[in-house]
């Protein structure tokens, strides 16, 4: 047997031993790989939940709101509209002192004495006075 044949044979023996002696990654690395896997699965789950279609009625309302928002210039304009609405309601319920209070006026007119006062008013006499003048 030549030296070359010996060397090749020894090499084959070494390869065979290397196949048997395969080393494993450490437990820490295996654990890190599992943590990576869980993180990827968790992100995929979150992403799927975000992409999931809304239930019919919610979707219908959302579509309508979206169309309305688009018509008035997008969601910022929609926000402005809502703010203006709330401000108007606030001024109506709690007006500043220099403005008439609509709530107080409503209660004044439903007061029993005020109703009687209106009933006692005689339009004919009133008009007659004007004609005489």
């Amino acid at each position, binding site marked *: 047997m030549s030296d070359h044949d010996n*060397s090749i044979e*020894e090499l084959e023996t070494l390869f065979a031993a290397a196949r048997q002696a395969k*080393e494993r990654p450490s437990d820490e690395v295996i654990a890190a790989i599992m943590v990576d896997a869980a993180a990827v699965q968790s992100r995929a789950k979150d992403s799927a939940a975000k992409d999931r279609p809304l239930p019919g009625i919610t979707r219908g309302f959302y579509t309508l709101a979206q169309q309305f928002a688009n018509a008035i210039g997008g969601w910022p304009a929609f926000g402005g509209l809502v703010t203006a609405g709330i401000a108007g309601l606030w001024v109506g319920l709690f007006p500043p002192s220099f403005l008439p209070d609509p709530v107080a006026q409503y209660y004044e007119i439903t007061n029993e004495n005020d109703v009687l006062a209106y009933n006692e008013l005689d339009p004919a006499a009133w008009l007659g006075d004007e004609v005489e003048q």
Partner: protein
Amino acid sequence: MANARPHDISAQNLEDEVLLARFARGDPEAAAQLTERLAPQSFAVALRVLGNRAEAEDVTQEAMMRLWRQAPNWRRGEAKVSTWLYRVVMNLCIDLKRRQRGGHLDLDAIPEPIDPARSAPETLQETRRMGALQEALMQLPERQRQAVVLRHIEELPNPEIAGIMEISVEAVESLTARGKRSLAKILAGRQEELGYSDV
């Protein structure tokens, strides 16, 4: 895997693909099984090619991360999971070596030291032999080393190695033949040290 027959390999691939699909649906058990099947295989190749345990572990973790990310887009029947993963591992090894060369550090010249204290006396000789093989492998050019590891240690068929390394089957044959000749030459001067003097 190393001694698997063709139908065993195809059965393993089918199982890998099923597990990958289960992983993509969020099954944590599939992740555990894929890790157990594929991480040691990736690590073994990376360790032989890089000759450094810490780097091989980094490459293994990164390769597995890429597999997890690829899972939802995996097209069944197009490629073998293990072949795809071997290719990722090899490319990561090449990238790592390239970066190290950029930093003027050639770890090819620094083989992993052998630690005899880790082995029982009766396996000391075997440890020496494995160390010598690794040192010899590290002296081969990178592509030769990859081809030799895939052919003679992982025992993959040449067409699969060609797919992994993205070269022709003829190029694989040439790389493995030259690599084997070089290894035999390198190890020829160490026969006595390795206990082969009586062969």
